[in-house]
């Protein structure tokens, strides 16, 4: 799905305006200036910050317990007691939305973390050593890339089963190909540089070159991809939960809330409207921040996307 199209312009970039070692002050300042120039990026950062704070302090912010049922108050409209009304089991909708931020953030961070860890390692190995390892890995990745992201995630989820942990692993695995490809391309371009040759000439070991010289210089586009994929992972988790294959019912996940609100659409549209709006806002913010990062890290793409 999206990672493929996003990865394309990124993998073309060869320059690393960000030096390996600690970025100089002026570089950092330039980065910050470009990054924060656009208002949408600032909005995105603000919304993500709000998301993190909400997730951390969910028990304090939520007016009710998210899973506490009260059937006598089921399917109520918005009121002073329940700001966004209650669902079919009498659970407070606002509290469930607030606790849903935890799931969304958790899924985003962990699944993208899994994908990054596996993808970077494989890409580094493939790009660094080349030869048959590279050929083998890349053919497998090519085959996986032909499968649409959500279909691939569904297939992994079918094998692993539902539940929060399995969904995170499924999404993580489905995102691996994009990272592996991007990382390999980066490694190949870093290998062309003089400092790479210099490191080999002075006799640095394979591990040392890989971790100290190659890896840091490959990171900028990876960071952009991570940010963009956070949104994609959250969106895909909501989709899986909506289909009923993701996170199991009692947990307050946004996708699952849309699913259960769907049955009461005619009388209580708010039940499925609000979680969707939350997903939209969060995903939009991650995309905006990702775009801002790309502009700041790769000057050649500035303003074109």
């Amino acid at each position, binding site marked *: 799905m999206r990672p493929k*199209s996003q990865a394309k312009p990124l993998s073309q970039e060869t320059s690393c305006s960000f030096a390996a070692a600690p970025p100089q002050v002026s570089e950092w300042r330039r980065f910050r200036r470009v990054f924060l120039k656009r208002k949408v990026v600032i909005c995105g950062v603000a919304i993500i910050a709000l998301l993190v704070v909400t997730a951390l302090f969910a028990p304090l912010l939520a007016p009710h317990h998210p899973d506490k049922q009260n059937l006598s108050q089921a399917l109520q409209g918005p009121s002073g007691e329940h700001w966004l009304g209650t669902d079919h089991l009498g659970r407070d909708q606002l509290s469930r939305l607030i606790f849903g931020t935890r799931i969304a953030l958790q899924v985003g961070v962990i699944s993208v973390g899994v994908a990054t860890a596996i993808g970077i390692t494989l890409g580094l190995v493939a790009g660094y050593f080349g030869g048959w390892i590279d050929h083998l890995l890349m053919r497998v990745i090519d085959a996986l890339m*032909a499968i649409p992201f*959500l279909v691939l995630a*569904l297939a992994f989820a*079918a094998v692993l089963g539902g539940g929060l942990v399995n969904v995170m692993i499924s999404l993580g695995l489905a995102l691996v190909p994009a990272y592996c490809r991007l990382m390999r391309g980066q490694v190949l371009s870093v290998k062309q540089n003089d400092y790479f040759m210099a490191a080999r000439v002075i006799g640095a070991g394979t591990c040392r070159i890989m971790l100290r010289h190659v890896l840091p210089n490959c990171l900028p586009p990876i960071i952009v991809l991570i940010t963009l994929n956070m949104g994609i992972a959250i969106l895909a988790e909501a989709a899986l939960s909506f289909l009923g294959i993701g996170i199991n019912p009692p947990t307050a996940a946004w996708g699952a809330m849309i699913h259960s609100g769907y049955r009461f659409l005619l009388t209580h549209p708010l039940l499925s409207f609000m979680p969707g709006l939350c997903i939209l806002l969060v995903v939009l913010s991650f995309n905006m921040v990702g775009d801002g990062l790309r502009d700041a890290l790769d000057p050649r793409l500035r303003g074109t996307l």
Partner: protein
Amino acid sequence: MQYYYWLGGICRGNLGRSLVYKEDVSALIGKRLPVTVHLGLVSLFISVSLGITAGIVSAVTRGSFLDQLITLLANVGVAIPTFWLGIMGIYFFGLKLGWLPIWGYTSPFQNFWLSTRQLVMPAVCLAVVPLAMMTRQSRSSMLEVIRQDYIRTARSKGLKERAVIMRHALKNALILIITLIGLQVASLFSGSVLVETVFNIPGVGRLLVNAVFSKDFVVVQACVLVVAALVAVVNLATDIAYGWLDPRMRQG
């Protein structure tokens, strides 16, 4: 060894028997694939035609209010949950206004009018994400082309702006855009899984979801295989089209 037999079967066009439907999987998929392809083609048409237009308008009027509006809408479109959009569509156009039927699928050969009415909402919902991606990408490839020297040459020899854009810029930008269509097909399949579930359309996406539910692994792997094969074929086709449109690529 089991995998070996399965692979051998595929070469002979046999995808195995469904554990749940007790039917040949190839027959199951054969019945549903035309539905998904119909839906997908309509969505592809919407997203490509509107996406390229919006992208070009936005690139040509770069920095204007219109450009900002299109960019904003495209960004929202990429982030929108497809299934949620479908549900909201059902609520407003199906339940509240009563304009469109809220679910089902009819073959256009049986009842064309009903089929079209049923298809409007799913196709539009499915088109939104590829449309937004298409807009962003065609905007950026158009901007890329406008920066080239030959555009400056065309302008400096006194051509009208319209001719510069339509004849020189658009032609070259389209070459870049063609390859993007191949990428959209994968995202259409992802979306069709959701749209077919929301609108209760008997396509491959729904078959896949139901198979995951009933742990019918034969069907799951067959669906994934068929979808991957289709995506690969479309990508191959766009690559060939690319070489055909751009003589520079033929040597490489």
